[in-house]
């Protein structure tokens, strides 16, 4: 409750947990159903013709409905990446881990996920291997729960 901080000032410590419960909605439900079957879907904009993944109800730029669903492949290319080596609240796995932008084949935007399946102790080695355009493919969890982490990570070809 009340205590002195490092500067010697009196502070009141409290903690709050506020529970929320979010509606997933039709579009996400359909996208996650695809994930359960190891399929990644995007939707195509009738106006700008962009294919965006995860699937959307509407094009965020053109502001028109996106009714056309496109099944994308399970593969793509690295666009950029970073290695996280510190702990933060809500992180997906223990550090070190790599997150990145992946350009999934047949899509026009970048998909954010983990890149993994190899040893991460040598940053210089990773920097030599992982370039823009490095091919990756999705590695799926055996048991799927219908969420974004049904994909375990994207594994680079060099790690095979």
């Amino acid at each position, binding site marked *: 409750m009340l205590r002195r*901080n490092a500067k010697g*000032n009196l502070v*009141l410590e*409290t903690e*709050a947990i506020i529970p929320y419960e*979010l509606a997933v909605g039709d579009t996400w439900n359909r996208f996650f159903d695809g994930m359960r079957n190891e399929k990644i879907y995007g939707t195509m904009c009738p106006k700008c013709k962009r294919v965006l993944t995860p699937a959307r109800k509407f094009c965020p730029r053109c502001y028109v409905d996106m009714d056309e669903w496109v099944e994308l492949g399970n593969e793509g290319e690295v666009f950029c990446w970073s290695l996280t080596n510190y702990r933060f609240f809500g992180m997906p796995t223990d550090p070190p881990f790599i997150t990145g932008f992946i350009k999934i084949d047949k899509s026009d935007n970048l998909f954010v996920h983990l890149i993994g399946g190899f040893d991460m102790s040598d940053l210089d080695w990773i920097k030599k291997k992982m370039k823009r355009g490095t091919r990756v493919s999705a590695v799926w969890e055996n048991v799927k729960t219908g969420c974004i982490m049904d994909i375990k990570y994207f594994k680079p070809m060099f790690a095979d």
Partner: protein
Amino acid sequence: MGKHYKTLRHDVWLPHEFAVGPVFERFYEGLKQEIIWGTKCSGCKKTLVPARTFCPECLVDMNEWVQVSQKGKLVSWTLANYQFYGAPTEPPFVGALIRLEDCDCDFLHLLGGPEFEDLSTIKSKLKKGSDVRAVWNEEKKGHMLDIKYFKLM
């Protein structure tokens, strides 16, 4: 929560560390010694409780500290009779605005005491202007509830 459609539970966790500042620090110290501190404005001459850094009316610093009376009159009250987050004590309980003697604002606190054991009769006993007095908790922590409640005199 058992909804008929798919949802995602999402708990937001927020730790806080509020700077108490010199005014509430002194106010809480007072509570520990069974003193209720107010401050008096050099501009409008009003005495406000709890003590303030500055006068909410004149916006000037309030430097004159006043020990205010522990007795006052009931201004308004409400009987809380359901469970809610942040309730100061297990409902039912009575929350009240009290005008402490010589103060120029109302003090938000609780009412309590033996009469409150039977809440069905309490309404007839509580009147605007009823005299009340602070009752202190034995153990004090530097918290508004170091005053246990105000009781009818």
